[in-house]
């Protein structure tokens, strides 16, 4: 099943998911529309919908076949109409959707080389002082474009071109929780200790993923985040991993 309406492409992903896609770009305005669509569909409480997963320019609706397609004869036709009607009503109502004020979340990061495992190498490679790397990494307001890889792992962009760097060819076996990494145009925080290939340039004292059901992921797709540098002393004071 594939159809399009206005600037949206709507297509089935296998037999139990539907994707709503805008043009494939890293663009805050596109992301904003995707998160608004997520909110819109969520408010409809549609029977059989299991998950609504936003990421960059797509929203993927995962469904449980049996309740979602109950008493439907022509499922392909049904899904096409379902997708088109959803987008039409979204486009009509989207101006009335309550848009939560997205405050910029200021996240502390300690860039001391005891945490910033790759910052010295990056400084040498790029011929940029550590102070400038910190300044360049802290200047932008990043968007959370996607969450995945691990529970709560945020993919944020866009990193200043001067400090963009590829992943390690061979991932580290264990990157500590809270580590702040960069990979190409993206920056992210490891929510838990895991293997990982991103270049580590700092560490936040904040817990990014808490399994307590009322907490879970500290950030959500669509959040705006800005980092600010802290000393090791301040890190100890703010450390939530104690």
């Amino acid at each position, binding site marked *: *099943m594939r159809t399009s309406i206005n600037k949206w492409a709507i297509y089935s992903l296998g037999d139990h*998911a539907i994707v709503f896609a805008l043009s494939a770009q890293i663009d805050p305005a596109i992301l904003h529309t995707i998160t608004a669509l997520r909110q819109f569909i969520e408010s409809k409480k549609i029977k059989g919908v299991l998950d609504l997963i936003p990421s960059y320019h797509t929203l993927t609706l995962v469904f449980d076949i049996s309740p979602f397609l109950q008493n439907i004869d022509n499922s392909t036709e049904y899904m096409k109409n379902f997708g088109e009607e959803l987008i039409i009503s979204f486009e009509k109502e989207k101006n009335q959707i309550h848009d939560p004020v997205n405050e910029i979340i200021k996240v502390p990061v300690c860039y001391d080389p005891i945490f910033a495992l790759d910052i010295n190498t990056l400084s040498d490679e790029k011929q940029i002082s550590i102070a400038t790397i910190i300044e360049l990494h802290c200047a932008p307001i990043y968007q959370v474009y996607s969450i995945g890889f691990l529970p709560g792992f945020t993919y944020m962009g866009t990193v200043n071109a001067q400090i963009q760097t590829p992943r390690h060819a061979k991932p580290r076996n264990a990157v500590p929780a809270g580590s702040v990494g960069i990979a190409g145009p993206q920056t992210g925080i490891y929510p838990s200790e895991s293997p990982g290939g991103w270049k580590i340039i700092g560490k936040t004292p904040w817990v990014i993923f808490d399994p307590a059901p009322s907490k879970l992921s500290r950030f959500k797709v669509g959040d705006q985040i800005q980092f600010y540098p802290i000393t090791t002393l301040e890190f100890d004071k703010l450390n939530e991993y104690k």
Partner: protein
Amino acid sequence: MAIKIIKKGIADSLQDQGRYGYQHQGIQPNGCMDYLSAWLGNAIVQNDLHHPIIELHFPAAQIQFTTNHTICITGANFVPVLNEKSIPMNTPIQVNAMDRLTMLQPLEGKTCYVAIKGDFEKPQWLDSQSFNGKRFEKEEQILILDQSDQINPNFKFNPLVIEKVHHFLFNNHDPIRIIPGPAWQDLTEDSIHHLLNAPYSITPQANRMGFQLAGPALSLTSPNNYLSSAVTRGTIQLLPNGELIVLMADHQTIGGYANLGQIILVDLPRFAQIKTEHLIKFSLTKLATAHNLYQEMYAQFKH
């Protein structure tokens, strides 16, 4: 009332239908690899279809029961023995205190289920007892509540359905059916030809996260950078080196590799049971066919 892990297996765990509603936070769904065998086991011991069930891979854990239970073994045939005696599969079995369940040999399939009548006293997180990467440890005790809930001796699960499900899972060499995904159109003509004609097999690099395939390498018409988007169980990803990975129950929630297509839900249990030495072929199917096949399968389990 409990079962106890006497000997640890390679990757055994308690699984249910999985955890949905949290994938936007990066939380994996988990759940049974072969949900059909899990439904079957639960139906035979008169549990709810989506009831948590013990999932075993070979070499499997050895389990001791501390009280009487009704159990049923479904899925892969690992030659189950209770104490020293061989026991049948797909049928309710009464076990007594101190009985030991051992799996001798991986005769058929890859994933075996032990359904037990009663509720498991296990931590639950976000509405599921499946935990990502959690394995049974030696000496682990899994408490079982609810002994009063005995099975109705007059009820017998339809033997024709048992036979049909078994045949569908194990005696069936039909291609694994797929629906093309967003990156299908980016495959070269040769690659599409290979994928739909050449035999593939599952390498030993196969776990609950995903199965790596062996077979002709595939390529895209031009190198393509995809923005990461959501993936589902059954998603076939093309790695930059031309290899294929099929995502399974513990898959991560988003992926940035070329998304070639999805194995249809009804064929996933069959795919999950295919052993390394067997060859697989893939064929394309239609969305409506996939839905009808799933609905027909599901209908057989609803009373």
